[in-house]
């Protein structure tokens, strides 16, 4: 019994290492190359990384900021991940995100007199749908004309910038201040995702209680089944360990939220990641999306409507990115202003690949990238290093995580054999 458990444990550790070894190796290698670049520019790498870490995790405010920065990244990471699952490279998350942010801001300041529990969700849904419709365009183009999504989505990014620039400089400009700035008016209080309100309403405690009850009922049922099957008592926990850990996560998050460590957007992002994971792994549509991504010819042969799946995938990707933009507007920025959301969509590429293109993997990956963003300002103030070094390290991470071979060689790791085609060539 004893030996069996240890071997099982070792197996668990090996699986864990196989899963997160490459991303972690990539991060370490990227940070090492970052040291070289910092040395070239005459900065002290130790000071730089110390300041970076302090700015990201040094105290509770820093940690809250890290999670706040991670929130839109989870969404854009999901927007990339779902595209990758269908074999499409959605570089257009940026455009979809700013369209969503714009729409949420519009609903936030143009609609007046609604109670918050209608107004705020309305802004989120409006933003998400705008992003989804904008994201659908490259899906439709790819499905019907074969236009490669990389080019169309990038072009749509520029088009989105032009559209939003025009809106904030013209029809939707904030005219309440003396000096006219290219930005929308501030959204109403009712559309804001300010967190204390939910706590004050007591709703959060009801949700918490519901989750606890669910977990208890679920475990008792599993326990009964387990005993009925006549299995050993101790191995019950080994068998369901990962499930229990997973179920503790929402309680942990809600706890953080109640203690004011979290803004509600992060919770929404985590829930979205779980829903997407469930959809991809457990539903027919998710299965069809994965088949299209793995082998488009097999998908066609199996009678999957490939065109429909492509459009749906891009719709969902745009939905995620748009929701990310909406959450950013209603939770952090409180208005749309060009420059607020720069690069969030592109960071999704790194987040998604670091998360091994797994919806739940985007969460830790986004927290990591979010931590770098949160720490970048501290680094700039304390160590006097331009915050742009973060972009360099991030691109190195992307390089190393994409070039798995290098990392595997350094770590002496074997291949785990899961490969999917990330994106296609010019033609289908």
């Amino acid at each position, binding site marked *: 019994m004893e030996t069996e458990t240890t071997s099982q444990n070792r197996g668990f550790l090996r699986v864990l290492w196989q899963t997160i070894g490459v991303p972690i190796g990539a991060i370490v290698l990227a940070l090492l190359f970052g040291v070289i*670049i910092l040395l070239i*520019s005459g900065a002290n790498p130790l000071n730089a990384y110390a300041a970076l870490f302090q700015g990201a995790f040094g105290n509770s405010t820093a940690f809250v900021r890290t999670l706040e920065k991670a929130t839109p990244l989870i969404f854009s990471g999901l927007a990339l991940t779902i595209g990758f699952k269908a074999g499409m*490279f959605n*570089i257009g998350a940026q455009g979809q995100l700013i369209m969503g942010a714009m729409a949420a801001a519009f609903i936030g300041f143009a609609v007046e007199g609604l109670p918050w529990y209608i107004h705020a969700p309305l802004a989120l849904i409006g933003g998400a749908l705008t992003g989804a419709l904008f994201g659908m365009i490259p899906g439709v*183009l790819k499905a019907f*004309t*074969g*236009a*490669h999504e*990389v*080019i*169309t989505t*990038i*072009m*749509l*990014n*520029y*088009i989105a910038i*032009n*559209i939003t*620039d*025009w809106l904030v*400089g*013209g029809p939707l400009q904030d005219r309440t201040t003396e000096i006219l700035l290219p930005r929308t008016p501030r959204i109403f209080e009712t559309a804001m995702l300010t967190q204390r309100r939910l706590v004050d309403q007591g709703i959060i405690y009801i949700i918490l209680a519901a989750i606890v009850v669910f977990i208890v009922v679920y475990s008792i049922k599993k326990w009964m089944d387990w005993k009925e099957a006549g299995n050993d008592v101790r191995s019950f926990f080994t068998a369901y360990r990962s499930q229990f850990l997973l179920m503790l996560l929402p309680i942990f998050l809600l706890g953080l939220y109640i203690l004011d460590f979290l803004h509600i957007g992060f919770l929404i992002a985590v829930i979205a990641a779980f829903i997407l994971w469930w959809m991809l792994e457990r539903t027919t549509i998710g299965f069809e999306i994965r088949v299209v991504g793995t082998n488009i010819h097999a998908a066609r042969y199996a009678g999957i409507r490939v065109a429909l799946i492509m459009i749906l995938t891009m719709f969902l990707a745009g939905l995620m990115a748009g929701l990310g933009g909406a959450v950013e507007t209603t939770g952090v920025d409180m208005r749309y202003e060009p420059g607020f959301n720069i690069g969030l969509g*592109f960071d999704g*590429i*790194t987040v998604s*690949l670091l998360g091994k293109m797994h919806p739940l993997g985007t969460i830790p990956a986004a927290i990591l990238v979010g931590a770098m963003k949160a720490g970048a300002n501290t680094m700039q103030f304390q160590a006097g290093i*331009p915050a*742009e*070094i*973060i*972009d*360099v*390290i*991030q*691109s*190195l991470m*992307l*390089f190393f995580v*994409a*070039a798995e*071979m*290098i990392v595997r060689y350094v770590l002496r790791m074997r291949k785990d054999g899961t490969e999917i*085609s*990330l*994106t*296609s*060539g*010019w*033609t289908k």
Partner: protein
Amino acid sequence: MTQVLTFVRSRQGKTVIGFFAAVVVIAMFYAAQPQVTQAVLSSTIRHSTPLILGALCGLLCERSGIINIGIEGQMLMGAFMGYMVNVWTGNLILAVLASMITGALLGLLLAYMSISLKLNQVIGGTVLNILAVGLTGYFYMVGLTTAGKLTTFPLGPLAKIPLVGPVLFNNGLITYLAFVLVFVLQIVIYHTRWGLRTRAVGEHPHAADTLGINVIANRYINTMIGGSIAGLAGGFLTLESVGSFERMMTNGRGFIALAVMIFGNWKPFGAWGAALLFGFAIAMQTQLNFMGINIPHQFVGMLPYLLTIVVVAGIVGRARPPAAEGVPFEKE
């Protein structure tokens, strides 16, 4: 008579007729408004130069079977290094060389990722793009003084021809280089041994390998030469067009160049025609503003991007890219 008809229906015939139609239209405009026509055409040439150079880069890479999404990044880094060398040495020729070498080095990185590491080439190109944005953003400093920019110089008597002279033969060094490169690549790809081998490698690397062509070396060299041309496009932006560097100044030109390449059916002359069309669309943008037509400038600014989407959506289904493109070569 039938011979004439077949010629008219053929691809070449259509090109020739299109060319003459364009000449006639331009001549008519010139007769009516010489100043405006000349301004628009000069601006067209200016805006098409980085596009044609980018497209030639993509064309060389793709003809040998490497998809290059990283043109944008190669341009940006080329622009930046050209600018920095201009600041350090004050020598514009050295600066042009620096931008080309930078592009070639990034081409080497792309080739290493896609040929040796067998990485997904689209991801590899994206790595280049993000790396370029990060590095240029990090090392860029505001307010450096440069040794000016490449000036235009007329090409002797050729520049005296009305309209054609000032538009075509009164440009800067890199623009002339771009003209020359179009012809050079057309000849290299279709009329030299190297070009034949490159096309073979891009279409059927295994057949090429059987015949003793070194597929890997061919792809490496083409990707690096392509990279240096993209770097030259970046050099055009900082050294000839603007005269200084700005963060993310390439503004999507690398991707538009890909559309130009596709529109031009992976052929140098075709790409040139497409680049001129795109350049014209961008030139109209400024001209419309001058003419006082009251459209928000953002809508006109969208034109090249919209045109790219239309081209990619309308053409790709019918265009035929090199067959082995995007597939890593594995010796059997």
